[in-house]
């Protein structure tokens, strides 16, 4: 019954050693992602979400110290050498970024870049690879795909480039896709197209996806499970409906109620006071406690462990786990335009 999960991470820690102290970017993250499932890592800047993602593929600079067990698609990432890593990257595990020009080389055409990746990983001939590239461009819904094969990245618009990058990432049928804020820099009408595309591709290819974002709405649209990250730890991890509907950690609850979504117009926002902790000098206890309405002595004593608040729902708040506090349920407002005709609730458009 327990087939091996595509992603299995145990107690991941990442430290950056620098001249001004050691930055504890990731402090004990453990999670698993099953085949065909989407996990969203939700957090603000400095929470460690991008570092976590890059640590999975060992894409961090040399001064980063990575500890912990990482298994991706059956490979033990810590044990692989450089050649082994190159095999996994782009092959079994692919990554897409916020800025497509990170992934796309400006001096080669899209077609060449995709074909080259396929040839490199699967050893087929260039002609076969080019035909596959064409199929991929059609799969990501780039219009006039045949013409676009011969285009350079700068000749494409932002949304097109994002799709080209996705095509490149999917060229070798990865079992796992890592997405680092791929929609953050996009206009809202393009963002929803890319979200829908990713959702469809994920279903069609039965890929596991880890999607890093700071946008709650985007996380809700794509994820089966959401992990909320703060100061290098997962403070909550659970199915999307429960994390959003009844959050089990004060940070999640505060995040959801403090944003403009959670407030009625014109009313004062319940902003979370203060600032995230300095990663060079984390507090001894719960890292959110200084800003938490419910923090008390026990919270300051030691870092709260991961409690099983409900089956498949984890929280690092000992007061919530003990049932002492009831967190407010966020009222995330209704959609204003055509929700009933657009969504799974009903109607046609």
């Amino acid at each position, binding site marked *: 019954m327990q087939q091996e999960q595509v992603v299995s991470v145990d107690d991941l820690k990442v430290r950056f050693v620098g001249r001004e102290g050691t930055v504890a970017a990731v402090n004990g993250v453990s999670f698993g992602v099953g085949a065909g499932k989407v996990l969203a890592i939700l957090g603000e800047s400095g929470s460690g979400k991008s570092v976590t993602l890059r640590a999975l593929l060992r894409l961090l600079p040399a001064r980063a110290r990575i500890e912990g067990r990482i298994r991706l698609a059956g490979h033990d990432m810590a044990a692989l050498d450089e050649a082994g890593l190159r095999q996994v990257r782009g092959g079994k595990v692919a990554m897409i970024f916020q800025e497509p020009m990170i992934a796309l080389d400006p001096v080669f055409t899209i077609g060449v870049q995709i074909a080259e990746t396929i040839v490199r990983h699967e050893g087929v001939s260039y002609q076969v690879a080019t035909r596959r590239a064409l199929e991929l461009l059609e799969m990501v819904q780039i219009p006039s795909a045949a013409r676009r094969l011969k285009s350079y990245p700068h000749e494409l618009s932002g949304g097109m480039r994002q799709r080209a990058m996705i095509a490149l990432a999917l060229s070798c049928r990865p079992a796992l896709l890592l997405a680092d804020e791929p929609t953050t820099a996009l206009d809202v009408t393009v963002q929803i197209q890319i979200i829908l595309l990713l959702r469809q591709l994920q279903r069609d290819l039965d890929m596991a996806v880890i999607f890093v974002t700071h946008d709650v709405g985007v996380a809700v649209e794509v994820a089966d499970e959401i992990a909320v990250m703060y100061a290098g730890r997962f403070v909550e991890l659970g199915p999307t409906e429960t994390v959003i509907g009844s959050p089990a950690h004060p940070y999640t609850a505060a995040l959801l109620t403090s944003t403009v979504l959670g407030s009625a117009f014109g009313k004062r926002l*319940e*902003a979370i*006071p*203060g*600032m995230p902790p*300095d990663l060079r*000098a984390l507090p001894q206890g719960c890292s959110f406690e*200084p*800003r938490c309405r419910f923090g008390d002595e026990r919270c300051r004593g030691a870092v709260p462990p991961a409690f099983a608040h409900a089956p498949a729902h984890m929280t690092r708040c000992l007061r919530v786990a003990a049932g002492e506090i009831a967190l407010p349920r966020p009222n995330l407002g209704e959609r204003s335009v055509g929700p009933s005709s657009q969504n799974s609730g009903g109607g046609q458009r």
Partner: protein
Amino acid sequence: MMAEAAALRVDASLVLQRAQQGKSYWRRVWERLLDDKLTLVVTAVLLLLLVMVLFAPWFTVHDPYTGSVLRRLKPVGTLGHWLGTDEVGRDLWSRMVYGGRMSLLAGVVPVFLALLIGGFLGILAGYAGGFLNSTIMRLTDVLYAFPSILLAIAITGILGSGLKNTILALTISFIPPIIRISESITAQTRHLDFVEAARASGARPLTIMRYHILNNVLGPILVYATSLISICIILAAGLSFLGLGVTPPSAEWGLMLNNLRQALWVSPLVAALPGVMIFITSMCFNLMSDGLRQAMDVRL
């Protein structure tokens, strides 16, 4: 408001935990420089050199101009002349120290003058834009088209040799690159948001220049200029070597190199010494300017 007060308290305590009050950019550069051992060593060497050439009489025994046929081309380590003597019998150590005055003068002054003139024109062109910019930059391009050594040779060829003309020729050679760098840096700075904000507050161009442009562009321009000193020292020595720079009997490293050429087979170590000196000085300036550039490249 309670939450805001709590926020402020949290803000304040975090802030106090970290850096000291208001560390300005130059202070950070200074601190980074102090960490950079190589640059410190190199700067110390240069400072020592400067002190020695300024207070030359204190560091030398013999007169650099008095020669003795009997004591020609003595090798290194001779009693009384620890670096030997040159082809006319003058003490090499004295000539090196006194020669340092000329070489350093001819190496640093042109860059300094070029910095003043070129920096002014470049910043003006970069800030003004438009027609003024085009005029200045195209004139610079014309001058730039000449290879610097040939330009220097041409000018001294016309004007004659001597320290003053050497400095003049080298200054003219270095003005174009400084104009170019200054214009480039100023033009980039001018488009940054904070300059727009300063314009949006209704400030006049000169005020903006004074408070927002100069303090941001002078640093990089200065660093670039220091990197030119090492080149200038070599060029000055080269001009003297060719007989177009400082004239005998003045001591100057390039001139000494030329004069000692024939002695290369007789006393190679002595003949090579001025060259070694040029090399060391130029290299030190180079490393110092590199260190300065790295220290100023402060990332957040």
